[in-house]
């Protein structure tokens, strides 16, 4: 991201922070969910840049969420900041583990194997009756560094927390995109042999990407769990992953900001569809996705990045 881009991002962040109290609660909570999911999308973007698509990204989302819910349930520990970190770490560890396997796969096989893994987790959770099986269970309301917000301000607190985590991730990931490992995405998609002969282990770079996307997925899941106040195995079902891939395509891999814009756009469209045509919302979503692919092949983000490219060429 250019210095200009960072500036714009910063302004967007400040606006989002300041505007929240003026917005009606339902928009705030809708935005919170969207911004939490945006992290998962960002993780998919990291993979997608290297030509990898995961149809099982929900596994990290689910692990992050359950890590939060179970910590709160078993230890009674409820600090939001710590819980979010726990969620991210838990998912990161799992990603690091299955990364050894996934790093060997490409294209559709990468997608299918991650799908299989996420569905196995789904099965395990469905079998765990002590955790309510498919009914799931509720997540304790979090505290913020010892202070417990009143129910009227809880929504805002969670929104700001999510926004904060998003901002940190956005900065780190755009830094990552500017690093060698980040920039290696396209080369790995193009020509792995050359990458190896330049002296880089493709496997370890891909592995790192899997872990990063896993951590982001976990953070997203953790925030979602706190916002929704409920976790269930469906968070790991393949349709959940499908939804995230959907948003990724909508957003496009062109920039970090795209993930957030795309996720917000998706939540808005979905909510509209539910509101206006309760029985035909799938058709609406499908059409939107189709039109995006056909007429905006690089996603919403491409609108932004086109402008940026032109400026870079000029400068």
């Amino acid at each position, binding site marked *: 991201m250019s210095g200009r881009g960072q500036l714009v991002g910063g302004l967007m962040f400040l606006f989002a922070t300041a505007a929240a109290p003026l917005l009606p609660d339902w928009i705030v909570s809708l935005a919170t969910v969207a911004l939490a999911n945006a992290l998962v999308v960002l993780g998919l973007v990291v993979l*997608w840049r290297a*030509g990898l*698509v995961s149809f099982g990204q929900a596994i990290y989302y689910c692990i992050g969420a359950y890590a939060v819910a179970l910590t709160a349930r078993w230890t009674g520990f409820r600090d939001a900041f710590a819980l979010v970190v726990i969620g991210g770490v838990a998912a990161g560890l799992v990603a690091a583990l299955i990364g050894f*396997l996934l790093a*060997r*796969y490409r*294209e*559709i*096989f990468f*997608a*299918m*194997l991650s*799908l*299989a*893994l996420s*569905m*196995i987790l789904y*099965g395990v959770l*469905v*079998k765990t009756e002590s955790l309510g099986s498919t009914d799931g269970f509720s997540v304790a309301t979090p505290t913020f560094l010892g202070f417990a917000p009143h129910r009227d301000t809880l929504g805002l607190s969670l929104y700001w927390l999510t926004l904060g985590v998003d901002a940190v991730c956005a900065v780190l990931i755009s830094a990552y995109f500017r690093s060698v490992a980040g920039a290696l995405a396209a080369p790995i998609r193009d020509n792995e*042999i050359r990458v190896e002969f330049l002296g880089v282990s493709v496997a370890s770079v891909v592995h790192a990407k899997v872990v990063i996307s896993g951590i982001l997925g976990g953070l997203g899941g953790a925030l979602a769990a706190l916002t929704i106040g409920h976790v269930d195995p469906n968070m790991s079902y*393949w*349709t959940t992953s*499908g939804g995230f*891939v*959907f948003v990724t*395509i909508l957003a496009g891999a062109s920039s970090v900001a795209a993930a957030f814009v795309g996720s917000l756009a998706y939540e808005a469209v979905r909510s509209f569809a539910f509101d206006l045509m309760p*029985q*035909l*919302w*799938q*058709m609406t*979503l*499908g*059409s939107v*996705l*189709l039109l995006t*692919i*056909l007429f905006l*092949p690089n996603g919403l983000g491409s609108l932004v990045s086109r402008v940026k490219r032109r400026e870079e060429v000029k400068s």
Partner: protein
Amino acid sequence: MLTSFAILTDGLVYAAYLFIVAIGLTLIFGVMKILNVAHGSFYAFGAYGAATAVGIYANADWPAALGFLFMLVLAMTIGLVMGIILERGLLRQVYGKDEVITVLVTYATFLILEDVIVLLWGPQSYAAYQPMVSAGNIEIGGLVLSNYDILLVAIAAALALLAYWSLKFTRYGWLLTTVIFDRETAAAFGVNVTLIYTVTFIIGAVLGALGGAVMAPKIAVTLGIGVEVIVLAFAVVAIGGMGSIEGALVGALIVGICRAAAVHLVPQLELFVIYGVMALVLVVRPYGLFVRAQPRKI
């Protein structure tokens, strides 16, 4: 003894079901490199079409066999029409795009078609049991089997043979094989790839619809049956090897037998069988049982 016999027969029946839903998917992937999520819609439309057909002939009280044929024909016609519309109207636009993009195009199509079903048939579910009930049952080795299930296995076997024969001994089959092996070269040698694509996709669609049709009498035709099938078919195809028809057959058999064994011996595992097998196979053979990775020449 009885149990092992039961496992075998149940496995075969389930395998037949899996193979019938997977063959169209693997064919399309092998030729066009498209992982067709809309295959679930073909299945669903086939089932709904079959239910409609059965409704018609149940009222017109025709002989069961005729009704069964009518059911298949109607369903396959629906598949044919959908195949043409989708391939000509939509997929044309995205040929040559990234594999994943095409997957998502079919995913979007699937979402849309799910609601088209609601528009055409409404949210209520349909029954088409007549063919299976009128087929009756037979007792073999102390186990009562439904004749319809046996018919199902026969249909699957026939499909497998037909596929084998047409790939080995027909002109289209040869052309297909060349395209599967190397599209560019095939095109360079004057094979009309676009035509092959159209034909293949239509065949795949018809097979998907056929799968729905033959299953319709066993199930309640209701919203969401497509979703379940997609992942099943994906798993089978991934196990056997994307685009390999013998792979789909073997994959279906493995999953079928494993599932039957699980249900009979350790019912708790039933939920994991398919994905467990899939993960295991992919770990050992990253490209599935019947596909080898070609090392790149430098």
